[in-house]
Structures are given as C-alpha cells and as structure tokens.
C-alpha cells in the first residue's frame, strides 16, 4: 500500500517508553504513508510540520520512542532533531520564574 512493504504492514514494533523519545524528521515517499506509520509505531506525528519536497515526497516531524529508531531507520530516512526529555528540561529554563506583572 503506497510504498509500504508487506513486511512492514504486518509487524508492530513495540515501543520502549522508559528509554525516552527522539524528536525526529522523517522523509516519506508519500503522505499516504503516515497512517501506516501511526499504526506500526508508537509515534506522535506533527501534521503541521508537513513539508512537500515535490509532488510526492514529504518531510514530517514526530516524536518516536527511542527503542524504535533502529527499525524505523531501516525503512525510512530519519534524522534526529533532539532528545525530547532533554529539550523539555532545557526549555523550562526559558520560562519566567516570577510574576513580572505583580511588580508593576
């Protein structure tokens, strides 16, 4: 179905949440592959991050369990953008720790 081999369709790759998640950018041959990705992997896809490279190819960003990265890399071009948990911790330092409006 739209570039997904039968071997992929019929397997479910179990996630290992306790290892954390990667923020990744995935290169797909078609937007139609997204439902298959969602069925097969524990993955949180960010649809607004879709970018069309040409008529068929798209890039999409997602969070994936670290445990499925190797399997996914064997089927798709996947680039790691960051470690979700580390990024979340880092981002929390960008948040105001006081109420600046109370000072006024």
């Amino acid at each position: 179905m739209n570039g997904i081999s039968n071997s992929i369709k019929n397997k479910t790759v179990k996630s290992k949440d306790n290892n954390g998640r990667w923020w990744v950018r995935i290169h797909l041959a078609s937007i139609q592959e997204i439902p298959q990705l969602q069925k097969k992997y524990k993955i949180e896809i960010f649809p607004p991050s879709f970018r069309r490279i040409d008529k068929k190819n798209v890039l999409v960003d997602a969070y994936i369990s670290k445990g499925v990265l190797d399997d996914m890399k064997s089927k798709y071009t996947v680039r790691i953008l960051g470690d979700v948990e580390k990024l979340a911790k880092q981002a929390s330092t960008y948040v105001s720790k006081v109420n600046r409006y109370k000072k006024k």
Partner: protein
Amino acid sequence: MPFEPYLNVEEIESAMETAAINNPGLCQLITLPNLTYEGRTTHAVRISGGTLADRTGVLLLGGVHAREWGSSDILIAFMENIIEAYNNGTGLSYQGKTYSSAEVQQIVENVDIFIFPDANPDGKAFSQGGTDWRKNRRPLNGEIGVDVNRNYDFLWDANVYFDPSLYFGYLYTPSSGTYHGPSPFSEAESQNIKWLIDTYPNIAFFVDIHSYGQKIMYVWGNDENQSTYSEHNFSNSAFNGQRGVPGDVYSEFIFDTDAQKIVNAANRMNNALFSVRGKSYSTGQIFHQVGVSAGASASYVFSRHFSNSSQRKVFAFGIEWGQAFQPPPVEMTNIIDDIDAALTEMCLCASEPNIFIRDSLGDTGKEPSTGSISASPDIIVRKLPVASPEVDLGDITVDPGSDKVEIGNDNYLYVRVHNQGGMPSDAAVRLYYAPLTTSCSPALWHFIDEVDITNIPAEGYKVSGAVTWPHVPDPGTSHHFCLIAVCGSTVDSFPDTTMIDSASDFIQFMRNSNNIAYRNVTFEDVLPDGWAEIPFVVTGFPGKRERYNLVLDGSKLPEDSRVELKTERRILKTKDTKLENIKTPAPREKTKEIFLKIGKGNLGTIRNLRIAPRTTPQLVIRIHLPKNAKPAKEYPFLIVQQLGRKTLGQITVLLRCVTGKKKPHHVKRRTVSLSKKKT
C-alpha cells in the same frame, strides 16, 4: 524589544487583569465559566474602543496545546501593543511592517477583539515544569489528559464519518497525545471556547494559534473544499464513511464567495507577516496543509452556521507559528512580531466595509439570514422620479412600499445599501426583474441596469439615485414582477449566482449572501365583492426532480373571502401529491386546467408537488373579497414554496380594498391561460 522569558501561567492572567484595570472602558476582563480540572479559572479580554454599538468580533485563541507556550506570549504582546498604540494615538510597528495610527483607531473603534490567550493553563503549567505535554490534565481511564483541539463537536467520532482506509486509532487511545476525549465538549477547556462564541454572537472571525509548521490555514479540515455540490456536507449521513480522501467523489461544500473571503484574508495575513522580516508561511486549506482532522476547532467554528442557521457565520483560521514548540527566546521575539502583524491584518479585515441589502426589515446583514428572504424593504419602485430620495426614502425603519409597476411606461427604481463595516464604502448595485415567482431563481432574472453608490457611511446606509426602468415590457399574462438587487464593492464582491444548481443551493445561497435581496411583494387593487387574479410561476430548480410544498395562506383575509387556485391538472397527477384543506371539484370534463378551492380559514397546502427541473409552470390565484371588506385596508395573501420544511421563497400579495363607482369587476375564468416555460 528583546524577548524576556516565556510568560508563566500566573503572569498571563495577571497581564490581562492589569490591562483591564489600567484601561477601563477599553479593555474588559471576561471570566470563563468552567474551571479546569486543577481548579484554575481562565480569562479572556475584550478590547473595544469608541462608541460604536454593533461591531464585528474577532476571537483570537491561544494556549490550547500545553507545550506551545509562545501562543500566549504572542497574544499578550498583541493585546498590550494595540492598547498602547490606541491610547497614545500612535501606529504599530513590527519590524518591516507598520500600521498607521488611523488603522489602529479603525480596528479598535470598529472591532471587538476577544483574546483568550491561555485556554489550557493546567497543561501549560505542567509543561513549563520541564515535561513535554500537549493535552489538558484531566485523568481518564487510567491515563491523563484530552487533546482539547480534538474535542470539538465536528465529526468527532472519526471512525463513523471518514473513509475506513484512514487511521484514527490515536483519537480513541487515552494514552495518545491526540486522544479526543470521552465525548464532544467533554472538557472544561473546549466548553469555555464554545461559551465565548455562544455568548458573543458578534464574533465573525476566529484564529486559533498553534505551533509549529509556519502555516496560515483556513477551513475545511475534513476534506477538500468545493462550491458545487451543497449536499456534500459534514452533516449529510449519506456520505458517512466517504470523507477524508483527496481526489475522490466526496469533498466538503463551501460557498464560493466564502472561499474567496477566507483565501483573501489568509493571503493578507501572510503578506503582513512577510513584511516583518521576509518570512513567508505556507497558506492553504487545513486539509491540504496538515491532512485530515476531526474534532478540531476551526472546522467546528465554521460549521456552526450550517448546523444551525440562527448562528452567525464565523470565518475560521489556524496559524502554526515557528519551527519548534519552544524556540529560544531570541527567535520567539521575531515570531511574536510575525504573528502579531498577521493578527493586526486580520483585525483590519474585520473592520472593513461589509455592504448589504436587507432581505426584510429585521435583517441586520448577519450571514446566514434567518428571516424572510423575499420582502426586501430596500428595493423600491416609483412611477415618477423621487425629488429627494435621501429624504423621501431615508427612513430605513419602515418599508416605504413600492408602486405597482406601470407596463409600457418608464418606472424608477431606488435601492438602499447598508454598510456594516467600520469604513465608508463605494458600491455598485445591479438590478433585475423576474416574473412573479415563489422562488426567484437567477435563471428567471432579466437585467435592468447597474448603478453606483459612493461613500456609503460606516455603519450607515445610502439611497441610490433613480435607476430608470425604461418602457417596462409587458410580461404577458401578469403585470406583477419580482425585483432583485445585487451589490458588490472592491472588498465585498458580487455573489456568484452560477453555482446555483439545485433548490437547496438556492436556499443556502440566499441565506448566506447579504449582498443579494429581492422583493416579491405585489399589490392588487380590488373592490368589495370583487375578484383579484394574480398569475405567478413556481420554479422547478435544476438538479433532481424535487417534491415541493406550496402553502396558500389567506388566513388574514376577511372571513367570507373565497380563494381559488387555477393550475394544470397534470401537476397534481402524481400519486403522492396531497391536498390539505383544498377541495378538488368533480371534473365535469377532462380539461387541462383545474380550479381548486381553498377550504375553511383560507389556509391550504399542496404537499409533494412535483415540478420538473428547469420548468416554471404558471398558476393563478383568484381571491374574492366579500362585500363587507373594509375600504382602504390592505389584506395580505401569502404563497410560499417550500423544500421540505425550508422556505425557498414566497410571494406576498397585498390586496388593497378600494372603493369606486364602477360595478364590482368579476374576472372571467380562464382569462389567463396557463403555460409551461423552459427557464
């Protein structure tokens, strides 16, 4: 101004309170009614300057998804900037994009800006503690949280509505980041958003601000947009299981004029954003930009006027800012400028002229309209030119009525065009006539002339100069007309009538466009103990052969009045046609024509009238007023064509009881022959 750290939840609330306290009369704090799971009260503000009473509302929403912190910062900055600029009488500057002080004033004094910057504070507080999080924080089924932006009542139960080849398992999985909840509007956060739109019915524009993806999007989100097949719509269960697949038969209906408006507004937002620092977002329909979505905000908000025609049409947009959920503060500073420029442009759109012609006296220009659609008080016929139209026809609280059109002579038409927007506007008006018909299909229209009206004041109206209707042609069997007026301007285009391909298209079209109105009111002088005879046509719309109802309502005639309907016998021949309170005389001979008598109370209905597509069979209503009819009084008689329970249109005949020396005029039967016309 360098961006300081992201606002925390407490600060967002304090920012709104501070704005409201410091700007009484300009900024009002609105308390949302539903507490979040963790007991937080959320607030919105309404920015509304000047004294204008009836203004368009824009709702700007942020903070629905917990980790998209910058949405709240964007909205708080927007709130503070526009208040400050208005108070100081200055313009706004977002790097390369500037708005003049006049534009700021135009926005603030003509638009109600509703800002709800932090719809999901529980989620945000948790996320800002250092954990990636998207949903709210309500525990359910052993998991925590519902995706508020999948909890709206729009195709919420995706497995029912969409093509089975699509995958929606994540919506039904409580551990998923996009779990849609146990039922539509199950969450306090989505209920609060709905409450705002319910409570402030002037809201006509909605922007839901998210990250990330650099996109400016508009409805629909469930399938491709199309303006041809109105039956292809989210509420039609016949298409359950077929939605969401691009390039197939099903696609979602949107009026062409609405599609033009939202595309125009989205492009304007993107142009403004581009001017800030050269960034260009991708603009387009949600379905094309992010794929299929169910239970999401924009489609729900826009769907409301389809689901319930008493609700206002709200043009709905989504913005996905940036390229990460929490970009570093320096980049967020630039993004705030980008999006605030786009939002200012959105508000400018909302403040611009919105011209319309009223369908009835109570019509305020709201789309869709809910009252009568065939009794425009703004289309006026006079036998002689009016010396001072602005004075003589200037009282818009009354219907000045129309003279009966004089066949063969010049008649004079006047149109009153209204401007709901905050700026003066020019407009052009096109006038048409049609035979007296229960539903005024554009196929029956004949062009009369076009007239320009300049400088229609903001929130005001203007009467056109006289449009001469030269040597009014004899329409043949009837001396009665339907008159149609259509208006357009540079920012509010003429409605496109070419898309009306069915009776339901016609209903939707007339209700959803305030730039078109028609007057189907005709006058007939009749003596006491005399007959009036009014020929009219019933329209068979293109598309499938529909069953129509024809209601004949003479309930306001004097008690002893008699009403007859002359029609072709074959029209009533279909076996499912039913006559309610209408008597059929026993046929003495097999004539083509038949006289039906309306029974007691002069209120009768023909149900399931089958009219072939694109035909306009002619009927004649004959009314006899009794001797005791009061002279100088007007008696209304209504002829209403319905499609199911929906009114397609109606004719109002006003019988003017006159006195005279001549003998009562008895109209001979069959003076008007019936004929079938191809439209």
